[in-house]
């Protein structure tokens, strides 16, 4: 089988190939259309006859359809003349019209139409009842059971929601489907029924888009969680999807939801199994890997967690898959939706409180006194005859108290946000469309932080013929935000906590920013005054992303279809940084301007052959697929120096300083197949195989095969349970499979020489060995087992339990090397990591009726363990260490042994062997003795604790009374550990004079006199024996419970139908004992989340008012 896909890259490079491909595509599309037209001339009929005999109509139908009429000519004479006017109508439709008022009826047998008398006798005979079943939005419903009460007779609706069943007058028809309220109807004589089923929220049955196909949740053998549009929009207002998913999906841990307006949150599904290949899940938008969508345009999100679900995405699904389906139009009335919200945000400082001028002075004075007394005690001649006040006034003049700059307040402000989304959707019989546009702007609570975005989406689907449909989707987004150009010590988040309250912000005139570089006192370590510097820089990033999909679906026969989806994505970014000649980072260059642009082109073609077949009670479906993915990224940058004030283009710079530019290319090729089978819609089996190759890997190991198998059993359909009416659903699931992870940089298998700007010398290009070659580099593979149970009872309680075990093997690791090897590290496949855990998702309807109360509770317990590493060797990773038998993120550092009650000295744990030599945790030896030492360098490095939480989860309570609803979303994390590294600077026991200090947390005790049992050593100016060096002293339990969101909504039903208004508060409260600003840090990097220099920019509190209008 050969598939077609557009390869735009080649179009750029080879004209000859363009022609070939265009030809190829053209022929392909043409053949499809041709085929489709031939089909429709066989089936559909066009008639325009006025007042003619029925016989004449039959003749015409015979010609057009190829069917033959059989009838008694005496009988036909009873027929009355008729007028008929139809265009492209099905045979059955024309026949129904023709026989409508006749005393006759018909039966189709093979290619013959038998005409019979519709006599009295027939009334007692069953009539063929036809009908269409839709939901309340007019969407046809597939798989609705239509049964006749008291009989075993039952049929199901097809994809178009149509059914036909034989019924007698007076029979009671029952229409039932999971997720909808069951309806009954007493049949009289109608031949065509139009049934509208009302959704039944209590059973929560949804059609789940699982990537390459869509299934009903009850039919799934895999562990998935669906977040529908409404649920997604409930809760936090953000432009970031991760932030909006927080607390809604069991097993999905969203962390570091920063207060930065544009910062994306980290998403981890069921724990991290990879060391070097990342933990981000794979995103699939509208059936195609990659792409992007604004949260406002999303109609549903499906989180795929086990191998049966992710298997088909095998190659890159080891971290789970998030499937996003964007909104589409429905035939019928054009719908307009407007959603708008405005709000304000407040900066959150949590338990962190910095000292003011007086507090810092008093703190340093105690430290100074202790130092003074020590020196006098040591009989230091410089202190003899000098009193303390004199000494301290010389060290810290009391005039510092004349200034009290409280930087945490000065550097923050009230933020605001503004979001408007407008969409129009609708369509006719053949064409449907959805157009959505969104503008979002947010001013952050830290000075200078801003974010603006614009997003436009257009989804169009056109049914070219009954068999062929074309879909075209375009999504484009634009984002603009300023960067903080003062990284490192001068960043705003650093100034927030370390700038000194003794340093003035403005000159005496109160409005001219104080320049910390001018002669005069500046006590702060970093000579940075945001208010001075901000007048001399401009640093702006702009990002544009654009993706467009062309999809063709062709129904070859009723059981076989072909679908090709082709996407081109373009992502571009542009950053311009101007520092003028008064800015401290560019004064030596007379001002500096840097501009960088980068863009990425991605092409993806996915081609599927889908098979659906039913044989009696056996239902089969299968997919055969082929996928190709090509990615090319390029960038270019230039820097010029000596730029006049007021200008900001490179042309205006006096001299060029540097240029840079690069390009990378990667591709993936995949073949895959999947078979689904079910018997009686009760027993389900699914299996898939996928074979993948990628340019990322070494010549010896480019290809790999992934597979999965799953089974499920709807137990309550069995005879022994089917009469237990209170069980709505009881289902067991089991799956096993392998998935891959290829989330590494390109070229890592090649041992090449790199030319780079950093490698030049004296203006001549230079090369350095880029890395050690690894021709065996290959896919990282996850082996996942999932056992699940779903139970729904009384239409009110639904419980989902999943137990999983995922072993990631052949881990892609950047293994650190001794410097003697010539390289910092090498990318290898070594080791394995296990994640084992339980997901629980419980939804209960506590109260029904006018006052309704629903609760959703989800929790995930995940245990992470490193099973094997490169020949058992640990991997040192800063203050963490990866080691066999321990969780992946395990803190490894000097272990704090408390404060010596006699001296107030800091103490750390020292392990010694039998000979009194120091040993470390990594030596994997049992200590002969465990001692305490006050010498930091003589303390052992030890494994001090896992960073991972014991469990995480969310609770949502929804209350509604008539048109009023209230939703409260909370999330919680228990047992996670943060290395609050910033305390080495702001809780330093007197080490330096030039950084502000935090006020002690409520549980802290400072040592003051012998006998004190304290958490904090004696304050000494100049430092107390390295007490502030990194150690487990600064590890904190960062468990928390957060009221993430409270929303009050009112929907108008009479005054202005379609209008709803709401008020919501994000991040209402956090309950935690953590001493920092926000305990929600990236648990995969618990150190960088709380950088030693800077304060964490935690989530802000937002108060938002919004309207939603449907027309």
């Amino acid at each position, binding site marked *: 089988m050969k598939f077609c*896909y557009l*390869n735009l890259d*080649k179009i750029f490079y080879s004209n000859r*190939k363009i022609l*070939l*491909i265009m030809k190829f595509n053209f022929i392909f599309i043409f053949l499809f259309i041709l085929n489709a037209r031939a089909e429709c001339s066989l089936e559909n009929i066009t008639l325009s006859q006025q007042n003619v005999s029925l016989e004449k109509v039959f003749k015409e139908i015979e010609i057009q359809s190829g069917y033959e009429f059989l009838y008694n000519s005496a009988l036909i004479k009873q027929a009355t003349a008729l007028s008929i006017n139809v265009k492209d109508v099905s045979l059955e439709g024309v026949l129904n019209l023709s026989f409508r008022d006749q005393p006759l009826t018909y039966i189709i047998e093979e290619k013959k139409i038998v005409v019979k008398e519709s006599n009295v006798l027939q009334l007692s005979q069953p009539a063929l009842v036809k009908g269409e079943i839709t939901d309340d939005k007019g969407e046809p419903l597939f798989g609705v059971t239509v049964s006749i009460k008291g009989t075993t007779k039952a049929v199901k609706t097809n994809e178009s929601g149509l059914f036909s069943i034989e019924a007698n007058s007076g029979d009671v028809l029952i229409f039932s489907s999971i997720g909808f309220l069951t309806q009954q109807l007493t049949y009289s004589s109608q031949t065509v029924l139009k049934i509208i089923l009302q959704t039944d929220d209590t059973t929560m049955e949804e059609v789940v888009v699982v990537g390459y196909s869509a299934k009903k949740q009850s039919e799934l053998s895999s562990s998935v969680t669906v977040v529908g549009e409404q649920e997604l929009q409930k809760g936090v207002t953000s432009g970031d999807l991760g932030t909006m998913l927080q607390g809604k999906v069991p097993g999905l841990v969203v962390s570091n939801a920063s207060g930065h307006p544009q910062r994306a949150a980290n998403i981890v599904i069921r724990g991290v199994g990879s060391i070097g290949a990342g933990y981000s899940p794979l995103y699939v938008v509208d059936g195609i890997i990659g792409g992007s969508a604004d949260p406002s345009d999303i109609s549903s999100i499906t989180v795929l967690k086990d191998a049966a679900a992710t298997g088909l995405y095998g190659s890159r699904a080891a971290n789970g898959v998030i499937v996003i389906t964007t909104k589409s139009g429905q035939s019928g009335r054009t719908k307009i939706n407007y959603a708008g919200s405005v709000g304000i945000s407040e900066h959150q400082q949590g338990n962190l409180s910095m000292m003011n001028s007086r507090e810092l002075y008093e703190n340093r004075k105690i430290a100074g006194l202790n130092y003074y007394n020590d020196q006098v005690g040591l009989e230091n001649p410089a*202190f003899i005859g000098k009193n303390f006040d004199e000494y301290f006034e010389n060290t810290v003049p009391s005039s510092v108290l004349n200034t009290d700059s409280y930087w945490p307040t000065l550097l923050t402000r009230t933020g605001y946000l503004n979001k408007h989304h407008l969409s129009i959707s609708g369509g006719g019989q053949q064409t449907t469309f959805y157009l959505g546009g969104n503008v979002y702007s947010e001013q952050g609570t830290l000075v200078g932080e801003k974010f603006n975005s614009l997003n436009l989406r257009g989804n169009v689907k056109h049914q070219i013929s009954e068999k062929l449909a074309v879909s075209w989707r375009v999504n484009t987004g634009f984002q603009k935000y300023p960067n903080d150009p003062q990284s490192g010590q001068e960043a705003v988040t650093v100034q927030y906590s370390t700038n000194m309250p003794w340093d003035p912000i403005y000159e005496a005139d109160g409005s001219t920013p104080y320049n910390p570089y001018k*002669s005069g006192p500046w006590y702060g*370590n970093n000579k940075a005054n945001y208010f001075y510097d901000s007048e001399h820089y401009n640093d702006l990033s702009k990002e544009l992303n654009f993706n467009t999909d062309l999809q063709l679906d062709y129904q070859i026969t009723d059981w076989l279809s072909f679908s090709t989806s082709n996407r081109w994505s373009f992502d571009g970014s542009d950053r311009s940084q101007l520092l003028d000649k008064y800015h401290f*980072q*560019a004064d*030596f260059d007379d001002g500096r301007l840097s501009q960088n642009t980068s863009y990425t082109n991605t092409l993806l073609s996915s081609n599927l052959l889908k098979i659906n077949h039913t044989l009696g009670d056996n239902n089969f479906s299968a997919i055969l697929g082929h996928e*190709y993915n090509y990615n090319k990224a390029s960038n270019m940058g230039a820097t010029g120096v000596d730029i006049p004030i007021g200008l900001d283009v490179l042309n205006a710079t006096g001299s060029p*300083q*540097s240029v840079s530019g*690069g*390009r*990378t*290319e990667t*591709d993936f*090729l995949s073949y895959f197949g999947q078979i689904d089978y079910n018997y009686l819609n009760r027993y389900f089996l699914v299996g898939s195989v996928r074979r993948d190759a990628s*340019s990322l890997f070494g010549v010896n190991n480019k290809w790999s095969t992934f597979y999965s198998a799953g089974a499920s059993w709807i137990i309550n359909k069995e005879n022994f349970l089917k009469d237990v009416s209170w069980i709505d659903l009881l289902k067991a699931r089991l799956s096993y499979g392998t998935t891959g992870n290829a989330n590494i940089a*390109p*070229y890592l298998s*090649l*041992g*090449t*020489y*790199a*030319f780079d700007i*950093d*490698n*030049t010398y*004296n*203006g*001549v*290009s*230079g*090369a*350095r*060995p*880029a890395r*050690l070659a690894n021709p065996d580099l290959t896919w990282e593979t996850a082996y996942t087992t999932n056992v699940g149970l779903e139970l729904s009872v009384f239409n009110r309680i639904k419980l989902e339990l999943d137990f999983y075990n995922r072993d990631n093997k052949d881990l892609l690791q950047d293994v*650190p*090397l*001794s*410097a*003697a090897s*010539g390289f910092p590290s090498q990318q290898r496949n070594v080791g394995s990591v296990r994640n084992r855990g339980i997901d629980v998702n419980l939804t209960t309807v506590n109260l029904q009726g006018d006052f309704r109360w629903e609760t959703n509770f989800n929790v995930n317990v995940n245990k992470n363990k490193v099973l094997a590493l490169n020949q058992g060797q640990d991997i*040192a990773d800063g203050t963490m260490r990866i080691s066999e038998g321990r969780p992946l993120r395990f803190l490894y550092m000097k272990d704090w042994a408390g404060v010596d009650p006699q001296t107030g000295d800091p103490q750390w744990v020292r392990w010694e062997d039998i000979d009194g030599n120091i040993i470390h945790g*990594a030596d994997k030896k049992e200590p002969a003795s465990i001692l305490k030492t006050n010498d*930091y*360098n003589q303390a052992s*490095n030890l494994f001090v604790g896992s960073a991972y939480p014991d469990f995480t989860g969310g609770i949502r309570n929804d209350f509604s009374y008539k048109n009023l609803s209230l939703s409260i979303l909370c999330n919680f994390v228990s047992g996670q550990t943060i290395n609050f590294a910033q305390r080495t*600077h702001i809780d330093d026991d007197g080490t330096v*004079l*030039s950084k502000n200090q935090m006020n002690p947390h409520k549980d802290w005790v400072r040592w003051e006199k012998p006998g004190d049992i304290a958490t904090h050593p004696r304050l000494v*100016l100049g430092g107390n024996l*390295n007490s502030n060096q990194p150690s487990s002293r600064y590890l904190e339990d960062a468990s928390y419970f957060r009221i993430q969101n409270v929303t009050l909504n009112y929907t108008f039903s009479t005054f202005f139908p379609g209008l709803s208004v709401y008020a919501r508060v994000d991040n209402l409260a956090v309950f935690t004992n953590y001493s920092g600003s926000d305990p929600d840090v990236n648990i995969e990097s618990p150190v960088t989340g709380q950088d*030693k220099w800077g304060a964490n920019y935690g989530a802000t509190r937002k108060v938002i008012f919004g309207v939603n209008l449907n027309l």
Partner: protein
Amino acid sequence: MFLALTGCELEYSPADELSNEQITESPDLLGNITNGIYSRLRESKYDKSRHFLQELPGDELAWCKTSGDHLSNSYTYNHLVNSSACLQFWQQAYYGIYQANRVIESVDDNASEEILQLKGESLFLRALMHYDLVRIFSRPYSQNPEQNLGVMIKDNTDGNNLPARSTVKQTYDFIVSDLLQAAALMTEDKSNVFASKEVAWALLARIYLYMEQNDKAIEYADKVINSGRYELVKTADLGRYPTLSPENNPETIFAIKRLPSENLGKSGIGSLYTREGWGEIFVSKTFLQLIYKNSNDQRIKFIDPDFVYLDGKKVPDPTEESGYKVNKREGYSKYFNLKYTFQDGIALLSSPVVLRLAEMYLIKAEAFAKIPAQQTNAIAMVNIIRIRAGLSGSQLFTNSDLKGYNSILEVVLDERRLELAWEGHRAFDLFRNNLPLDRSFTNNEGWSGQKKILPTADRIIPYIPETEITLNPKLKQNP
């Protein structure tokens, strides 16, 4: 067929990289790899760490603050096993050594002169990096070199070969052998920002001095002096020394070239020393006392006092060596030093000098001072340097008038201090001569370091980075 049509490759080579085969088959590209070794020298992680790890333990400057990169631990002798500055320097040096080994291994002895020159340069760079490592991480050669540990000698590209630390003697012997071979292979006179045989001789002269092979030190210093390639800059130009780019400076033997486009600005070496940068490190009181003894000493021009002005005029102050009131910070008078600034007039740009001719005279002076029969020659060498500094008459030493110094060696060492100030020599000069270092100039407030550092103290050298011991357990930690 379809795959061919769409060009599915599954193989891409990096746009900015070349394969080993492409490189080693081309002499031009071998030049690029050698250039890549030099580029390692100018990386901040090498160059800046090297400079401060050598300079901060000395007595020529005073630092009013602490730094987060652990450099200030070298200043206070309060070393940490996990010092980021030490780790960065250690790693960069061995990466550079590995690069040099790549070139050395790929050139056989029958290669053309041009290629052998590249091999010679690589041998020099390998020796220089081993020397920088052993100088910083190991005890002086004068202290039990056959027992004390040097550094890992890495002379091959086998990534699995992780050596233990050789002794100090073995390390020095290896460096000497490399330098001798390098000098023999190099025939081209590239500019003084590249290695040549004279550069190798100059480093040999210094190393022989460190090894106390004084005759050899004199021999190699003479080879450099007599090569005629270098001359001392004129007295009038001395104060402008750092402002000349190395190629325009006749005295510089070897410097690490930094172009204006490679200016690190506030992150560079000079930034901590000058008012244009962070300006946190000042000239020490004891050094000021020494240099201001002769107010016409041209080397005072390397000092830039931050004078207090009143009505546009300096304010006289007899307590200051400069004679005028100077702004203070944390109790230290702000005398900046200008040795790492204003190359080509660009404020924070400098190409640090590794070897220069004046040092050759001072190497000879010290070697003569240590050979009892030739001590009298030492004063002549010192006077060459003093005359060049603008001193004359009674400001010069004679063998009969040591102007209060107790020995000729003391005279030589103070002259080295004056001439080579802030060039990374002072602490080594004292400790290798078994002399203590005096830190009495540090303020009492906030200073937790020692006032007198003995040459026998464990902590005159930092710790071997703990991370590297983890990756190569054969490495033994310094006591």
